[in-house]
């Protein structure tokens, strides 16, 4: 038990030191990098490690006879959570969301410190001490609180009443429900039954297994399979069409969606909503190929209201590309990100 706890304590201390150093900038802030696309899992894992670390720290300290009062444990843990949310998570989350998480964790901490009568008493003790003010120190503290709290609350309420401008929060549905069918260049495509005509093997037959076997490899870099180069002169079927799709992508799409399909193209910084990041497992990896076909063909202007059609600069590509070209681009996007399109069943 003790060995386990000391390992945890060591881990907790190291973790908190590293986090502090990264926040202040003593070590580069990307020392422990948040991996794009896996951030939620990573954050939960990190927090779990920290909780384990803190448990170990607290155990070790009380074992060494330097027990840390429950009151300060609660407050410090809450402060830690707030700091973690503000400085660790990137891209930063807005204050309103942080406030929500902060409130929830505050409630959780209260539940923890009031889990049994004794704990709760221990937690309350410092507060009661200040209220009773039996020693000189607590007396000074009490007077301090008497003055500071009204000032703070008055200041906050003044701050809240002075006219301010804050960006209104607008919640957009990124993947709205698709229509049953879509009409592009005079032909109707039923989303449930349509297939990408270029997802074919070298013999020209629709072959999802073949194409899935030839996409780029998942993992760092997302590189093509060694023997599946779309730029091979002899490439036939799927890989040949991937190259043609890529040519169209780099003539039309990369300006916003970026050279690595991560939504960080040349013009991306100017637009809001920002262009979709296809390498994120939450975009095309979650969608059917025909859904992408519909979104690409109709663009921002073809979105239902919950998708903010008034603000999206996504072109209705049917104005610029043929149906074949759109299918090829979709093919390329799945190849380059290494994702399989979702199927309807």
């Amino acid at each position, binding site marked *: 038990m003790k060995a386990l706890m000391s390992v945890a304590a060591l881990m907790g201390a190291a973790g908190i030191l590293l986090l502090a150093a990264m926040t202040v900038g003593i070590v580069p802030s990307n020392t422990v990098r948040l991996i794009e696309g896996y951030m939620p899992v990573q954050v939960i894992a990190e927090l779990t490690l920290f909780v384990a670390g803190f448990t170990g720290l607290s155990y070790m300290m009380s074992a060494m006879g330097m027990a840390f009062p429950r009151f300060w444990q609660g407050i410090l843990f809450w402060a830690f959570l707030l700091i973690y949310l503000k400085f660790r998570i990137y891209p930063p989350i807005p204050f309103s969301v942080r406030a929500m998480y902060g409130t929830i964790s505050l409630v959780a901490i209260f539940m923890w410190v009031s889990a049994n009568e004794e704990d709760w008493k221990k937690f309350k003790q410092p507060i009661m001490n200040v209220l*009773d003010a039996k020693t000189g120190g607590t007396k000074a503290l009490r007077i301090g609180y008497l003055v500071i709290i009204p000032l703070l609350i008055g200041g906050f309420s003044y701050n809240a*009443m002075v006219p301010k401008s804050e*960006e209104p929060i607008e919640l957009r549905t990124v993947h709205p429900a698709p229509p049953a069918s879509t009409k592009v260049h005079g032909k109707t495509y039923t989303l449930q039954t349509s297939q990408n005509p270029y997802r074919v093997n070298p013999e020209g037959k629709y072959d999802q297994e073949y194409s899935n076997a030839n996409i780029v490899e998942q993992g760092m870099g997302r590189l093509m399979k060694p023997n599946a180069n779309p730029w091979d002169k002899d490439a036939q079927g799927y890989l040949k069409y991937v190259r043609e799709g890529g040519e169209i992508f780099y003539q039309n799409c990369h300006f916003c969606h970026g050279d690595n399909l991560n939504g960080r193209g040349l*013009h991306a910084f100017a*637009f809001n909503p920002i262009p979709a990041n296809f390498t994120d497992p939450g975009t095309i990896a979650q969608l059917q190929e025909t859904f992408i076909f519909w979104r690409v063909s109709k663009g921002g202007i073809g979105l239902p209201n919950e998708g903010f059609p*008034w603000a999206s600069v996504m072109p209705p590509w049917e104005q610029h590309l043929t149906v074949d070209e759109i299918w090829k681009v979709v093919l390329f996007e799945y190849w380059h990100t290494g994702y399989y399109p979702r199927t309807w069943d």
Partner: protein
Amino acid sequence: MKNSLRLKAGAFLTTAFGVILVSGITGGLTFAAETLPAGFKKGDLAPAPSADMIEAGKRVYFTKCVWCHGVDGAGDGPGADRLWPRPRNFNQGTFKIRHTASGELPLFDAKKPTPGQNDLFETVTHGLPGSAMPSWEGILTEEQRLQVLSFVTTELVKDRKFTDKQSESQTVLQLGDLKPIPATEESLKKGAELIVEKKCVECHGADGRGDGNAFNLKDDWGFSIQPANWHKCWNFRGSRQDPYNVKNIFRTFSTGVNGTPMPSFADNSTVEERWHIANFVNSLCEREADGTPLAIDQLTDKPKVNFVLSSGVILDNAEIPADPENELWQKRARRIIAMGGQITHKPRNFVNRIDDIWVKSLYNDKYVAFMFQWDDRTKSVAEGKLPWPPTSVNIDVKEQDPKTGEEGSIASRQNNYAVYNDAVAIETAVKWKELPAPIKPRYLFGSNEQFPMDIMKWEADGSLRAFKGTGWDKDFEERDNYEESSKLLFSEWKNGRWTVIIQRPLGNKKDQDYDEDTFFETGQYIPTVFFAWDGHNGDAGRKMAVSAFYYTFLEPPTPQEAYIYPIVIAVGVVFLEGWILMRRANKRKGKNV
């Protein structure tokens, strides 16, 4: 390169005259050592990368790079023709950002990804801001970046060899050992004098906005390029994602930019002079009012954007000043409006030369005014009458074909377009109150007749017009009686920057038309979009730069209550505290009894 030429010349002479071989070579060497520019040291060529690295790099190249740089690395991939600047042609071994002397190959060692000692690795890692080359850090591993560079430097650089000791040399700027001179006022003053003396201003312009020789500059391949705008350091190719770092400027100034008209100043300036110039150039980059650098968004390497443009109130019915130097304008906070190319509908603008606008706003009881400031290297006013009426939206400007061959590419056509008017427009939603937030009319000229857009457009011919937009492909409608009440307060192009102030009515039911004109109300968020046209880029109609939706927010004056209520609340809290203390005291008394 320079030194090796000298050596070759020396060798030629020795054979030609048949004099003592040894003295000839040593003479050549001492000669080279004497002329080593200040701050540089002789370096060694790096060893060749292993065959494994090259083979692995080929796989990276054909997954990620081939799309722009082409199968043979000639900078002619499928994406190349719509890019400006064009992707690098590797074949000649000409690389822009280096620590090596002008004309030399850049530093590259496949085994040493050390910052400051591996130019190509840093270029791939940080990308080249202001161009389409992204940062590959976090996308490719360090190993993969070294692999792809091994492939590029051995297989795609065809005219030169990174390991050939006969023809190549490395004269390396010792940037790590050179201490920057603090950017004191004196240093900046010296720098300001030096940029005139060294003729920097001839290309970069009197104010450094890259407007000096904006038309005639070509790179080694004959493509049009433009001098850097010193006010946008985040677009410096060599900024290495650290745009306010003076060392980057010092390096570029010392080593030049190979393949472009930007020379190295290592031979004709001392290290100290170079620091003064770098300090001065760095000081010109846009900053906050208090002098701190702008916050840069890590994801895009551009300044961070705030989507609320707040307009300051002028009380007591005073007029809005027409002079941008007026204190009211000077004190007003400015907002950066990020601009992208309009690539939603034809004709698309793949290369927008205006990529941001600074906007300030003021209002009084009748009018609201906007001050636009943006950098444009050329003042463009169309000669004669334009072939279409001002209301025309669907005008015939051809967009760039996707694949044209180098002769038809954007990079070779730049500065060769028919010249139209520079222009800027502000578009606000009409009847925005009837639309439940966040619904707005479409950003591109409105949704339909029911929810149109109010468009005020200023053009460089001096006109200020008011339109109603009812859809992206619908010609504008002129608005009645609106232009009379609006006013162009100021417009000037100076040293590569436009400043335009327009004033328009706040809107009221008596004088304006509720169905056509935006009514501005204090404390409300009014959806706003900005458009800009660069006449020398052939911008007209929908070929333009656009912003996302912003909000214009007229700051209400601070209400009386804001001073009264907080005091009342604070007093209330004091009473509450007293009550809690009394209760506690009573309880304890009770216990004691």
